[in-house]
């Protein structure tokens, strides 16, 4: 009897699932250090802005594809209240820095080696990005990245930017 209970307990702990960050709900607040460690960043703390929150890692090949595109958006739409926050999930900080040497970008890079934020946002694949509107609600979850996704995503961002 006791053993059964113990077994159930252990199994329950092992396969604990977390409440997903759902569409049209406020983006969960999750403060992390920037990769340089000079300051902090919280993707949910940009009121009045459209935020593209991206979870990435150096070993993720589609992430490398996405970075030039994100950088282009950052420079094109930054003036209209658009922010790219890319949270790195590498366990080794140096690997993230090497990646950024190969793919230099100008947007904000956060670092979350412990994986606190992806757990909160229930990331299922790499990369996963979240479009957060000016009201702070998650409006789109995008898993993976193909170059052919770029045009559709950009249109979505532009339409969110035109909202009040």
């Amino acid at each position, binding site marked *: 009897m006791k*053993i059964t209970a113990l077994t159930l307990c*252990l*199994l329950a702990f092992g*396969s604990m699932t977390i409440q997903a960050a759902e569409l049209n709900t406020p983006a969960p607040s999750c403060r992390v250090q920037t990769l340089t460690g000079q300051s902090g960043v919280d993707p949910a703390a940009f009121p009045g802005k459209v935020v593209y929150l991206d979870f990435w890692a150096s070993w993720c090949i589609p992430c490398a594809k996405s970075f030039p595109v994100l950088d282009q958006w950052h420079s094109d739409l930054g003036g209209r209240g658009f922010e790219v926050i890319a949270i790195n999930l590498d366990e080794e900080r140096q690997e993230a820095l090497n990646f950024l040497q190969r793919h230099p970008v100008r947007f904000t890079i956060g670092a979350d080696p412990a994986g606190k934020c*992806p757990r909160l946002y229930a*990331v299922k694949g*790499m990369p996963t990005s979240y479009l957060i509107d000016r009201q702070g609600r998650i409006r789109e979850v995008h898993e993976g990245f193909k170059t052919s996704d770029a045009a559709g995503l950009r249109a979505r961002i532009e339409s969110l930017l035109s909202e009040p």
Partner: protein
Amino acid sequence: MNTRRLSRSLMLLTSLLAGCATQVAPWERGQLARPEMALEPYPPEASFRQHVFFSKESVSGGYGVGGGGCGCN
């Protein structure tokens, strides 16, 4: 006495198996993504070997089946 031993070993087994129930999160695959973790360390060589193997296997095929050992598969 025997039941106690059985229950103890079962408990030990359960605690060992608990590790199997934990999942590798999608963002924790950095080590798995390393080239030395690949199932096939030399993909070009592997595909070449497989090609040769397949061609040679085809030589001993039955009648009227595609593949004549010319290496064109």
